[in-house]
Structures are given as C-alpha cells and as structure tokens.
C-alpha cells in the first residue's frame, strides 16, 4: 500500500520534472510580484530575489537539471565502471596499473579546477556533462574495480573467457550483474554530486541554464532569511529526486 503510494508519488514527480516547463503558471525569468514575496501573495511558493515565481522556476529548472545531472552521472559512473571493470578481465598485466594510476592522477586534480577548465574549453551543456563525468570517472572506477576484484577469478568468468566471449559479454553479462549493487549505489551518489557540480558551475558564473535547481539554491541563499521557500523547494526537489533515483537503482539490481 505504502509502496504503491510512493511509486505513484515518484511517477508524479518524474512527470512534473519532465513536463514541468509546460505546466508552469509563469515564465522562468519574468518578475511577477515584489521580490521575496511570501507564499500565497506571489505564487504557491512565493517569489525569489527578482520577484520571479519560485514554483515556475522550479518547474522550469527540473528538466535541465535532471537531464544534465543524469546524463553526466550516467556518463561518469558508466565510463568509470567500464574502466574499473575492464581491468578485471584485462589480459595484459600493465593495463590495470596504467589505467588506474592515470585515473588516480586525474582524481588528484580538484573538481573545481577540472570543471573550470572543461567549461572554459566547452562552455555549454556538453562541457558541463563532460566536466562532471571527468570528476566522477576516477572514483567510480575505483569502486567498480574494488567490486570486480572479488569476482574476477571466479570460475564462470574464466569459463566465459575460455569459450571466447567478447569483452562486452564478459563485462556486461558475467561481471556487471554481480557488482551491480555497489555500482548502483555509486551512481546514486554520483547523481547527487553531479547536481551540485552543476550548481557550483553556476556559482562560478558558468551556468548553462537560467533556472537549474542548483542555480536556484545558490541564488536563494542570500535571501534565505526573507524567503526560505525559494531555497527549500529546490533543495527538497533535489533530495526527493536523489532518494527516488537511488531507490530505483536499488530496486533494479
């Protein structure tokens, strides 16, 4: 029963996030009431520091946030996992140390520098996705490798190698199903990290959307005392999305 309600709520949320821009009462950028109007007087959740409707902005910002964060988390965790896993059945001895040590070096570059650099070179959404992915890859690869380590020597993997399975099968069908749990958990965390890296990019003046939830949070922070809803609604949105994404990831494995 409760599960059903939760599921329904999750689907509803997803719908709102995906079709939000079509449902908004106002534009994401036009002021509709005095700044920092409390809920009620200016829209359901009041207005932000420019007098724009918080609800409309949240609805507008859900889709870009979800897409950017999701795609980049998927790309980062996915590539990281692929690299981490591929070290397991790799035949050349040097592959693993070379790959993992290079990723370690990449991990040592602070995320902020990495994202700044990528965004300078590719100042658009693709750059943002690339930046977040680059930040995620080394750690995801470590998680994946640690998990795959437990599995690599198992007889069924060797049997698959012996019968000449291609690496896609080895990774996707022999190893992945056994390490899916940790990887899904990792993906969930990467998703949240991605959301905030996207937000941090906005904070540094590298935003690629005008109503990303991360951006909304950063913008709402100075006036949090005046209009807490402008801060809390996107924070809650991200939290709910994160919980939903992680639950789904857990369910799927």
């Amino acid at each position, binding site marked *: 029963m409760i599960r059903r309600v939760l599921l329904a709520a999750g689907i509803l949320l997803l719908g709102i996030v995906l079709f939000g821009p079509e449902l908004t009462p106002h534009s994401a*950028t*036009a*002021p509709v*009431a*005095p*700044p*920092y109007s409390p809920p009620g007087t200016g829209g359901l959740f009041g207005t932000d*520091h*420019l*007098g724009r409707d918080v609800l409309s902005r949240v609805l507008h910002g859900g889709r870009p946030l979800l897409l950017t964060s999701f795609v980049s988390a998927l790309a980062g965790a996915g590539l990281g996992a692929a690299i981490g896993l591929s070290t397991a059945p790799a035949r050349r001895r040097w592959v693993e140390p070379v790959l993992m040590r290079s990723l370690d070096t990449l991990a040592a570059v602070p995320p902020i520098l990495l994202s700044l650099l990528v965004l300078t070179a590719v100042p658009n959404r693709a750059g943002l996705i690339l930046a977040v992915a680059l930040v995620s890859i080394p750690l995801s690869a470590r998680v994946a490798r640690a998990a795959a380590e437990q599995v690599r020597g198992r007889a069924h993997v060797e049997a698959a190698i012996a019968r000449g399975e291609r690496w896609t099968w080895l990774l996707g069908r022999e190893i992945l199903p056994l390490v899916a749990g940790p990887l899904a958990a990792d993906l969930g965390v990467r998703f949240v990290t991605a959301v905030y890296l996207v937000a941090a990019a906005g904070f*540094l*003046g*590298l*935003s690629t959307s*005008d109503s990303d939830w991360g951006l909304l949070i950063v913008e709402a922070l*100075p*006036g949090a*005392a*005046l209009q807490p809803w402008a801060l809390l609604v996107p924070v809650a949105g991200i939290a709910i999305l994160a919980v939903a994404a992680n639950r789904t990831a857990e369910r799927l494995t």
Partner: protein
Amino acid sequence: GASGPVSAPIAGAGTSAARRGGVLKAVFTGGGAGESLDPYTGGSPIDFVRHDILFDSLFTLDKAEVVPGLALAAEPTADGRAFVLRLRAGVRWHDGSAFTAQDVAYSFRYMSAPERAYPSQLASFVDSAAVRVRDPLTLEVPTKQALGDPALFLAAFPAKIVKDGATSFTAATAVGTGAYRVTAFEAGREARLARFDGYWGGAAPADELVLLSLTDPQAKVNTVVTGQADFAGDIPFTTAKAGVASADLEIRTAGDDHRTAFGFVLNPTLEPFDDPRVRKAVRLAIDRQALVDTILLGYGTVGNDLLCAGAKYFAAKEPLARDLDKARALVREAGAEGAEVTIRTAEYEIGYNASTQLLAEQLKAIGLVVKPQIVGPAEFFRPEAVAAAHGVSFSSGAVPLAVMYGRLAGFPGLAFPDERFKAAFGTGIASTDEGTRAKAWAEVQDVMYDRGNTVIWGQADVLSLARESVAGITVRDQAKYPYLGKAGMA
C-alpha cells in the same frame, strides 16, 4: 509594490558621542590571504579601512570637500604642470620620529613603483621620480599633465604616506602616522590596533580596535548578532529587510551623500549603442523604481544616469521618466529592433547579475534582446572582452568626477567618444580656476545626460549593522570603507 524598508535604517554614526576607552570590534569584508599592512598591496574593503587609520593621506575628503591631512596646501603653478606641497608641522610617526618632506617624497616613489600590487593611480598624474624636497615641510611636485586642483587628486586617489625607507609592513614594522598603531595582524583573520596617543588629529576614543575579516556577508552579520563583534560594515539589503531581532542592534545607513551608484555602461563603439537614439531608448525604457525595489529592496533612490552622486560638481538632474512608447519609437527609428546585445556582468558587487537579468526582462518591451554574459570577477574587466560586449554592469561610490570620468575615458569599450565631452573634461581637470572648472563639469554632465553611455538606474544606500552603543563612525572617502579614527563605544 509594498517593498519599502520595513524599518527605515538609522542615518549617521550613532546617537551619542564615543567615550574614551573600551574596545571596538568591527567586521568588514576581507581579502583573505591577500590582505596586507602595506597600503599599496591590500585591495579589499578591510584593507582600505585599516590603511585609513594606520596611515594618513595628504588630503582627505569630507562631504565632497577637500580637507587638509598631512598636507596643509597644494598650490599649483599657473600652467598647472607642478605644485608646491606644504606639510603639517608637529606630526609624529608611531615610533616617535618626526614626519618630514623626505617621507612624502619617498612615499611618492613607493606608491608608483610598478612592483606594488596596487600602485597608486596618482602615478599617471604626478611625476613621482622628479619630486623635490625644498625644506622639511615643503616639496615641489611636477605633474604629468595639467592639474587645476591637485589637492583633489591627492585626496581622491589612494596616497597614504609611509615612512622614508619603509619596505616591510608587518605587525612589528608597519609604522604610520594614523590614529591607531598595529599590535597584531593576520591576513584574512584580524588586526588588533592600539590607540596612538600622539596622533596629530587628536587621540581616538577607543583603547583598542579589533578589525575582523570575513568574506561571507551572512557571517559578518552573524558576528554582530551573536555578540562576537560590535559593528559590521556594508551588510546586504536582505539582512536589513529581514531585520534583526535584538533590541540593542540597529541597522544604519551612511546617508544620502554616501550612496553607491548602480547601472550599466553601454559600449558606444558597437551597434546598436553607437546610436544615441538607442542609448536614450534604454534610458527611457528601464523601470528605475522596479530596479530599486528589487535589487536594492527599496534601500536607495532612483538614479539620473549620471555617476558620482554626492561628489563635488555633481549635477542633480531629474531622472528620465519611463516612456516605453517613445523608447520603442527611438529603437524603431534607429532600426535596432530585435537587436541582440550582450551585457557583461559578474557578481563584482551584490546585485550586478540580478540587475542585468532584470534589465533583460525590461528591455524585452522595446524589442532589444539582452543576453547577460555572466563571468567570474577575475575576468570581468578583461579589456578585450569588455570592448567586445555591448555593455557592462557598473557601480561606483561618490568619487570625484575627475577620477570617475578619467577612469572610464581610459578603458576601451567604456570611454565616451564625444568631442564636446572630451574638451569639457580636459578643462575640468586642468583649469586652476574654480569657476571654469565648475562650468566644465556641468558641461560634461550635460553631454552625458543628453546622449551619454552611462545608465545609472539607482543610488544604493550603504548599510551597516551596529550595536546601539557604537558611535563616531564617519565617512571620508567611500561609505563602504568608513573612517574609524573617531569611533568608539558610547
């Protein structure tokens, strides 16, 4: 809208006079590890506040008038290409030694040395290398261009006087002539200053000043709210709007003469703003009151598109009334309908980005498509980028007109290429006659008001948060960096 301040901030420096004794703890926006006791190294608000009480200038400003500091007079030659500087007698350094013309000559050289992190811009007006000491209290100072009122320049540009031969500025070695001397200092954290009883301007009230350095505006406010400090300079409007719960705290404003102008500078070399009609259209189209209500939360007044409100010679013209029809017509006439313009902005000061976003919304009404170009503060003033943008966000305190327009004139993309403007500007700087100067500055502003490229939509209050008992805080130069030499606890 109903967005005026809930409780109007209190103007001035506090009700009662400062008594002698006590410790005043004040918090300002810091510059982190980049802060310095060297007056030509640190460049953050707290540096300016600290430099002001440790060191003295030759002249200072008081309510837009030049008043003598370490110098009593700067007498220009007839052609304005040099001036004679007469110094105050009886001034002592913190270490007890006497202040002489040698110190001033050294300071001129020190401040304009290119290896200074923030060399004084005075260097482009004064020929520092050729300064000659005539006697212990007199110097001859040649200038690089004619200066009609050198004292104004000496007051307006940072020109703190350091001791002859000084190279090191640590808590142990920094020596000034100011009202306080330093006892402890750590960049980005705090400076402890003790009253200098031998101060020529009269000993300061408080025994000790503690200057606390923070970067987060809310953190600054929190220190005062929780009693960790007595005074926080330059607090955000949101805090003022939210109010403070404590009865012994008050929100103060530096007053009408000490506001910060907010606006945009349009690039008059690029389409469409090379056309005076489009510039005028922008000025007619913006909703000044909405901007003041939104960005300043009502703490301020609308601007009249002219810079330097509060400074000497400022022309208090009526702001243009909003007239969308006329604005649209002008845009149409200029054939600029649907033009895309990039406005460069960075959160150089709170409100830059927000006002640009709002401008974008407002200019939709006259068919201009504004693309805010939000960048990091470090790249904001990159000359090529500014020259390539159609406009930039801008703000400024009440600095003298010569300083302000001088700065704009030297910057590609901001300078206003107008013959009448240039001629009047030259006269305003060079003329030794007060009347001629006044006329020239009036003309400069007439041109700007008629077809200029500055769009100043508002004058923002400078707010601070203080314990009721904090008294004697005054403004010399800019309200964001108040002078604490007369401050203390009531």
